[in-house]
């Protein structure tokens, strides 16, 4: 049986006390495998920085991002880099992006950014590109190929229809359950780029894809959805180890489709509950087997959080840092070939839901 990280920490706790640094992040070299192929990175997502007016921003969302940044700064050893998973702003405004970037500037380490729909639909990514960089790109790190997608595009007929103002369009896309909304997609142009980008990569190279929306179809009513997800999945199919990490859903999700492992990240702003989708019909949609313990509304940070990620031999272990809640880990089970909750998967070890009266 492979020793997972949590079990490792538990069983060697006494030994670690003597040598460990403050945070719980301990890089573990597994067996005789080359430890240089194992590394960690941090992931912060869905901050939704929101301007009220003037220089006043929503305190709750500010505090979520500030807390994540400060906690991430206390990690040791330092993660190799950080990801920001999109929705830095709430309504795509310059003030919001600037304020969010100012908070993010305190994060110690290189940050790669993924764009979310809340950052995009005011000016179609113009300010983002001028301040942060391209909307899709790839990079390599320690033998892993990383791809950043802009998965929140949609049909041109929606994006370019006659809007009263750009803000009208932004507000329409910002509404979670807007029946007049439009499904997210990666689009042909980007798919063409992705095809070319992946053509250069050896099929044995681990691939990690970052997107804002899930590159799998979960629930269209809330746009937990990417219209051309299958096309992206098809391009990823030839690779041995593939992980897609997405934001947008503000909750823990994990799934396996063929060779592709899917993992969602938490928001620093607020949690979404699970959509009550497809209850009438049998569905082959990703099953959400272990619900998030209910958020305690008194503690604003409960059911929000951020994550650090161990990349072990190209597989992704997600460690959720959840203030005012129990931290969770979803680790890749090499036996089954699926990501799995390290602790709460078994029915008798799940967290009982809280009840409020």
């Amino acid at each position, binding site marked *: 049986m492979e020793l997972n990280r949590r079990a490792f920490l538990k069983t060697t706790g006494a030994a670690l*006390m003597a040598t460990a*640094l403050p945070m719980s992040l301990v890089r573990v070299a597994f067996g005789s495998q080359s430890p240089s192929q194992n590394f960690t990175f941090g992931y912060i997502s869905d901050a939704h920085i929101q301007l009220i007016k003037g220089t006043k921003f929503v*305190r709750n969302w500010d505090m979520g991002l*500030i807390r994540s940044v400060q*906690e991430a700064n*206390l990690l040791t050893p330092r993660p190799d880099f950080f990801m920001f998973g999109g929705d830095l702003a709430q309504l795509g405004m310059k003030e919001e992006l600037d304020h969010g970037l100012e908070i993010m500037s305190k994060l110690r380490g290189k940050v790669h950014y993924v764009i979310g729909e809340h950052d995009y639909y005011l000016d179609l990514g113009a300010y983002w590109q001028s301040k942060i960089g391209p909307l899709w790109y790839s990079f390599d790190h320690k033998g892993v190929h990383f791809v950043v997608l802009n998965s929140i595009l949609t049909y041109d007929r929606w994006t370019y229809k006659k809007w009263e103002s750009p803000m009208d369009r932004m507000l329409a896309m910002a509404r979670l359950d807007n029946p007049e909304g439009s499904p997210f997609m990666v689009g042909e142009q980007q798919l063409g780029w992705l095809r070319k980008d992946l053509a250069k990569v050896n099929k044995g190279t681990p691939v990690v894809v970052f997107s804002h929306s899930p590159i799998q179809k979960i629930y269209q009513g809330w746009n937990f959805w990417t219209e051309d997800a299958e096309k992206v999945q098809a391009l990823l199919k030839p690779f041995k180890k593939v992980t897609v990490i997405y934001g947008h859903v503000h909750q823990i999700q994990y799934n396996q489709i063929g060779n592709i492992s899917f993992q969602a990240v938490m928001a620093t702003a607020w949690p979404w509950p699970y959509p009550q989708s497809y209850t009438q019909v049998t569905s082959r949609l990703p099953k959400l087997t272990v619900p998030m313990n209910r958020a305690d509304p*008194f503690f604003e940070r409960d059911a929000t959080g951020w994550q650090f990620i161990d990349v072990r031999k190209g597989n992704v272990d997600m460690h959720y840092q959840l*203030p005012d809640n129990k931290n969770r880990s979803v680790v890749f089970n090499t036996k089954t070939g699926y990501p799995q909750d390290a602790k709460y998967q078994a029915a008798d070890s799940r967290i009982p839901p809280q009840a409020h009266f």
Partner: protein
Amino acid sequence: MNRTSHCIKAILMAGAVTAALGLGVAFAGPLGLPPVPVPADNPITPEKVKLGDKLFHDQRFSTTAEVSCSTCHDKDKGFTDQLPVSEGINKLKGTRNAPTVINAAYLETQFWDGREPTLESQSAQPFVNPVEMGLKDHDPILKIVRTDPEYQALFKNAFGKSGGQITMVEVEKALATFQRTLIAGNSPFDRYYFGGDKKAMSPAAVRGLELFIGQGRCVSCHVIEQTQALFTDNRFHMIGVAAHQMPKDLDELSAAVEEVKRKGTDIAVLSDAKTSSLGRYAVTRDLTDIGAFKTSTLRNIDLTAPYMHDGSLKTLKEVVQFYNNGGRVKESDPLPDLLSGGIRPLDLTEEQEADLVEFMKALTSPEFLRK
């Protein structure tokens, strides 16, 4: 004798009954409080209480023979010392405000950071902390209690033990037992809320109670239940007190944690303000717990100024203002990065702040009312 002793007598009788029945689990508390939890292996007996009382007040268990438990937990000061932070031998200062011992029997963990689980295990620490009673180890205590004729009789009565049979286990059990008799409820609030006496609290205090469970959001941590009120959730929260002392970065945090490992938690956190500011994190190393301290009970809070874990707020008014400002002394102060999500500005008016203070003054038990 005053009313405290009546209360203790009543408890002793109840305790004697449960002990005689071999239950040793709990006995009834006064109005507003649940049954007092008593560990099965340390039932309350009058003999043990008498012994614990003497141990609690004995100054010989400090290097200078000037400091006892009661130095910092003085009955006439609501079982605190009414200092910002406690002073031990040679006026050495610690880093934390002495919490009241009244109703400590109900707490699920002891010390501000909950580093000890029971009154028994807690009681042995201050003897050997260099800024409290300063002993190198517990041997001098054992030497005294094994040879002093008065103690010999008391230990014989309480435990049936003498000489080398007496260990710190018995000392701890006696001290804990004495503290389990320091139970006080029946405040104006209790008589109003649980006793149905609508005249027991002033109109201002009644308005304060409304705010306490409403706009002030106090009750979320300072818990009031249907039949009892401990005024604590027994949890740990980073509410913003002494945020400026907290480690600013990884280097400072590492240094503080190293300090805890090197000296042990009890000594490390009382010797340095920065290490003290780790709060619950010193015990759990969980990021949520950085700067988090245990929710204090509010019973008899009017007697135990100054307030907060470092005694940094002088009055109840200052405390209410601190919360009203969302976890800071002044509204213009920066919010701490790791502030608990439960702490946020309350938008209370000055009148509302005053009403909350009046409510807290209605939490004093009659036996401790100022003369």
